[in-house]
């Protein structure tokens, strides 16, 4: 048997596993490209919040009214940026559902990519889309010239929205592991719209009946919505807002970790 390759023990020793569990810029770039290539995702996470801002944020009847350190238009811009960012990160997280349904997760187990690195990659990708969403809404805000607030508040509010949307990356992952189906995205669109209404992103909660207001305070976007507007409005930060956001982060992240562990358990 002639052999052009004669493996030795020394050859085995030269074989190394990659660092960071296989995570690398090339793969992140390709993951972002996949998200952007999906027209639905771009329309939902980037175009929709921009359109909503243009519809609600420029109304002459109230847009220029002062609100905290800025005006109402700035307040609505922050709301819409949050809506876009959480839609983006939820969608990004829920991509695992499609990948599991397609058998891609199994394929990845034949590569050095570790399950933890995979999850981190999904979160980072989701956060890139979330950032695109915030930047798009803020950029349109600047172009229209309506939203007004000090420069530092543009930066602080934007960062708060972006970092806060991490909570929903966990939500997306949880749903993605819970519902291994190609249809999870349709389901998400409806759920996120309901949560946005309940969290007071579209209509101020004070316009709701008392009972609904009370219920709304326990929904996942309520705390986050209050917190991201806090820098603009000034005033104190309520413990209930922090508790709401922290509790939902714990629930989503805990759920995602639970399902993820179940998924990667070697059968």
């Amino acid at each position, binding site marked *: 048997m002639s052999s052009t390759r004669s*493996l030795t023990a020394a050859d085995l020793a030269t074989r190394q596993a990659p660092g960071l569990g296989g995570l690398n810029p*090339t793969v992140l770039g390709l993951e972002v490209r996949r998200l952007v290539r999906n027209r639905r995702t771009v329309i939902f996470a980037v175009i929709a919040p921009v359109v909503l801002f243009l519809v609600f944020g420029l109304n002459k009847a109230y847009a220029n009214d002062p609100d905290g350190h800025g005006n109402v238009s700035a307040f609505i811009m922050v709301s819409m940026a949050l809506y876009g960012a959480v839609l983006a990160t939820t969608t990004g997280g829920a991509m695992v559902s499609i990948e599991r349904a*397609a058998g891609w997760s199994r394929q990845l187990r*034949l*590569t*050095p990519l570790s399950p933890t690195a995979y999850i981190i990659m999904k979160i980072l990708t989701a956060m890139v889309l979330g950032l695109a969403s915030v930047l798009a809404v803020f950029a349109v805000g600047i172009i229209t010239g309506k939203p007004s607030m000090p420069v530092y508040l543009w930066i602080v509010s934007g960062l708060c929205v972006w970092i806060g949307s991490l909570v929903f990356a966990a939500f997306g992952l949880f749903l993605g592991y819970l519902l291994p189906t190609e249809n999870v995205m349709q389901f998400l669109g409806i759920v996120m719209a309901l949560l946005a209404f309940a969290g007071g992103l579209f209509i101020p909660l004070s316009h709701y009946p008392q009972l609904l207001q009370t219920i709304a305070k326990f929904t996942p976007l309520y705390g986050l919505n209050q917190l991201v507007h806090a820098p603009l409005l000034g005033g104190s930060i309520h413990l209930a807002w922090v508790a709401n956001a922290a509790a939902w982060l714990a629930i989503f992240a805990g759920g995602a970790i639970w399902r993820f562990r179940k998924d990667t358990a*070697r*059968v």
Partner: protein
Amino acid sequence: MGLVPDGAQAAARSLPPAIELSGVHKSFGSVQAVNGIDLTVASGEIVAFLGPNGAGKTSTIDVILGLSQPTSGQVSVYGMHPRQAISRGLVAAVMQTGGLLKDLTVAETARYTASLFARSQPVAEVLDRAGIAAIADRRVGKCSGGEQQRLRFAMALLPDPELLVLDEPTTGMDVEGRRGFWAAIRQDAELGRTVLFATHYLEEADAYADRIILLRHGQIVADGTSTQVKALAAGRTVRATLAGADEMTLRGIPGADSAEVRGDTILVHSSDSDAVARYLLTSTPATDLEITTRGLEDAFIALTSDDTDSSSPGAPR
């Protein structure tokens, strides 16, 4: 099977086998998918797992690749845990139903995979070797089944693995695609890569493997060169009338692989029917001797199907 080149024998002493399974069992609930497999595959061998659906081929491969944990028993690949061997790019696989992302192109999928390994072959070169360089910019979702399978093959080649595992790689391909795929594999195997593939096609095992392992009910029922297994499978049945015979004695006949007694009729299965016939006619009062040949396909079915428990063939090892 000494497939390690002579000059490398000193090095080979410290080289662990490509695959080592000892006492591997795998059960799903009450179903025993793998029922005690001991197997050593040396570096450089081309091995076929041959058996019908449900023989335990895929379950065994899953264990070798670390995709599933054996219920009991030991697995090592190049002396390490399968997962470690995969992380180091020592082992790669083309699975029956490995998923692909429809929204990436062929080249992007390969680049994605390549980037995950510490060391990878150039993507363009590998696509060329898998025969899909021409469709590099095509979306995976628009590729045919055969093209997708070649892409999976290309992905498996990227880390330049020492061991390549293929689980029924040509399922669902037409004759043309099947031939092309095997041509690519064969060309690649000539470089000295260790290859383990599962198939339920006798011809595929015969044509491409230098060692065939026959599986049935999660156990190895035969293990040898293609010629050995073929001889075993292509054996003849010697039928004769012999009163008062018992199976144990009949199995002791030189050349007999198995025997069956039905009243006064005896059936001796053998890969050397001449020796059996000679013995029966010269050393026993057997009469009405008849020698029948089983077709290759029939024999294979007989070796691997359910109702042959009374005549399980001796395995050449």
